[in-house]
């Protein structure tokens, strides 16, 4: 099997798998990283979003070969209970979810947005999250949480 090398959550990683395997399979199966969720397998719901380079992409329809030599961030790489990302703090502060299955993908889309646009308007936040589906109706809380995180990150 050919090896694919990339940086995963800041760590040099080498995966020995069919390069046509979808990134989500590699993450959840081989690497045991279950933060990115399977939702549809067709890039239509955003539950499996990860950040490749600076962009949020669906890991379910991103083949492994396409991330070679790139930087991949999964929900596990965003932050932890000990070192939370401002977005994670804000999602807790706003209690911005009901079931939470879509949340990791939404955090990824939001993190990619804040990298590119640290001061988004509400409309820009909604546009950035438009590829992510939420079925419980927690959208407005999530938008508030992203704006809160942006404010916190902008504070000196």
């Amino acid at each position, binding site marked *: 099997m050919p090896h694919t090398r990339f940086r995963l959550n800041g760590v040099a990683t080498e995966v020995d798998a069919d390069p046509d395997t979808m990134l989500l399979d590699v993450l959840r199966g081989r690497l045991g990283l279950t933060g990115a969720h399977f939702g549809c397998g067709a890039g239509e719901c955003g539950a499996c979003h990860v950040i490749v380079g600076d962009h949020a992409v669906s890991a379910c329809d991103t083949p492994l070969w396409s991330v070679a030599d790139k930087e991949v961030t999964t929900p596990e790489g965003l*932050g932890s209970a000990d070192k939370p990302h401002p977005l*994670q703090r804000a999602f807790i502060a706003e209690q911005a979810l009901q079931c*939470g299955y879509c949340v990791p993908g939404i955090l990824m889309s939001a993190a990619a947005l804040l990298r590119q646009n640290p001061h988004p308007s509400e409309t820009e936040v909604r546009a950035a999250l438009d590829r992510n589906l939420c079925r419980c109706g927690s959208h407005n809380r999530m938008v508030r949480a992203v704006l809160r995180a942006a404010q916190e990150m902008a504070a000196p």
Partner: protein
Amino acid sequence: MSTSPTLPVSLAANPRLSSWIRFAADGEVTVSPGKVEIGQGIVTALAQIAADELDIDIVRVRMVRASTAASPNEGVTSGSLSIQQSGRALRHACAEIRRIFLAAAADRFGVETRALEISDGTIYGPGNISTSYWELADEVSLDRDATPGATPKPVARRALAGHSAARLDIPDKVFAQPRFIHDTALPGLLHGRVMRPEMSRAKLAGLDETAARAVAGLIAIVRDGSFSGVVCDTERAAEAALRGLRKGATWSQGEALPDENDLAAFLKAQPIESTVIDKRTSDRPAQAARTVRRQYTRPYIAHASIAPSCAMAQWDGDRVHVWTHSQGVYLLRADLALVLELPVEHITVEHLEGAGCYGHNPADDVALDAVLLAKAAAGRPVRVQWSRADEMTHAPFGAAMAIEIEAGLDARNEIMSWHHAIWSNGHAARPGRAAKPALLAGFELGNAFPRVISGNPPQANGGGGDRNSVPLYDFPSWTVESHRLLTMPIRTSALRTLGAQGNVFAIESFLDEIAAEHGEDPVAFRLRHLTDERAKDVIRTAARGANWKPAQKPGTGYGIGFARYKNTGAYCAAVAEIEGEEDIRVKRLTLAVDVGEVINPDGVINQIEGGAIQATSWVLKERVRFDATRITSNSWTEYPILRFSEVPAVQVDIVQRPEIEPVGAGEAAHGPVTAAIANAVFDCLGVRVRDLPITRDRLIAAMNSSS
């Protein structure tokens, strides 16, 4: 006349106190409810209730997931009943446990119990003496039955109830910790997939296994009648083997589906079972000057969870352990026992969290799939996950409804009589309730069980298709009839609100039409026809919150909707502000809700807000699609739901009633929001859309038929 005290219903069914609460020597307090977390925050609200009643800090509480191995049997987590059932049971159990421990401490210290106080679980007596729940835990047995008459604290002395405690499950979900069943690892886990037909109810006529057998990592192919599937060592292999299986499958013709563009004609042409739900007779019958009749419809609606349903199962001889996100572990176990012909004691069903389900989705079906495939796994656990397409096509749907309302009006256009008739499949076919199983694979096995025709819960339990069909208004007479279909070409079962969304849409739309004919303000019209002050309060509060009614601007409209969920639960009123030309955009929803005592205010707001947004999605977009042979809405493209950029602003006001027993909030908003949007469309465009969803096509059709 005095009534003797009785136990709350869940506690009467599960009276053993130790099945609800246990104290560990290290100060941890285990709370074990029979209800499950489905994203509604119930576990946190129940922890608040237990901590309050026991006088302990909520951080000591460890909430146990429901399992048939140990949990109280509280049936199904549905119907917005968990606070009513589990909450009341826990409150009474904890009140009694508190009293038992106080008595034990009093004995030990030789003092009266009223000389004792509890603070965070430590029991203080006069002077410096103290003990605690955990110190006394060894000598105080809770292996005894609850007795009626324990007195929970008065509302004013509850420290946690009424406050917005942070949800206990949220940190894990935000920090990507494995918490969902989908993310749970078991040693030696194998992966299974089940093959289901595209054509509705087609039977598996032949199966060439060659292509599937060629897949590396294949462990087993399982076939029993029309049920078939694969077990592999990885998910990827299981997907490949399933593709192989599909290549080798030949199917019989399926069963015909109705015309999706004329659901009312289909619903009204089927054999039915008719029930008079309610009748009120006027003591002063009079001749109507005229009658007005309208028909309203709603389509089949998908639960469409973001996560495809998932389960795991592991056999050990003739015993099986099942991990599931089912809403009722005991009910699922009962149906598994029927299919497997095993005593229930041989089956353990344990809950793990799934994504929001919004009713009876395939959570139970996939559990049987996993159990059947795991039989071929030689004792290893097997995880089965449905595909997105199966989730959107083989799940039970919320039932389509046709509702006719006819009112007799007097010469001044006042309502004298009211006739409400519903044609719909039943809204309930959950497992564990009948002599035959209600699980999908059970209908497919070689020795197949008959397909269940959905029924309706009785009105005493809130009704099904007839839920919220009895008017809450002071009309002098009415008849309400429910016609339940006895055929079921499209599988239906419980979706949030059952029939209430359709009935409230019909009633509140119809009232709006009558008010408009009167030239009367729709809020004033409703208030004039209501006598219940709680009902009037939520309507006034929502109207005030929305500055009812702002001056008319072109392209903008306002509408109101109201209901008391199940006629006995939460009161909710909604005002919708929309913009509309070719497409409808809901800009703002203003809601007021009265759930009695509020255990967790932010939890209630979260539920109402979520319900309002989900209802907006149903109203503007959602409709299960099908042609003559198959369900065609098998993806998010074919079954679109509301997106971030389309979500309205939502404001929720709680009308506080701390002295009234709490009820659930999860389903209160759907009906009122649906009606409010439809009424706002009329206010904006002057047309009544009586068939959901309110899409561009429906608007054009309504405009054409009204011009």
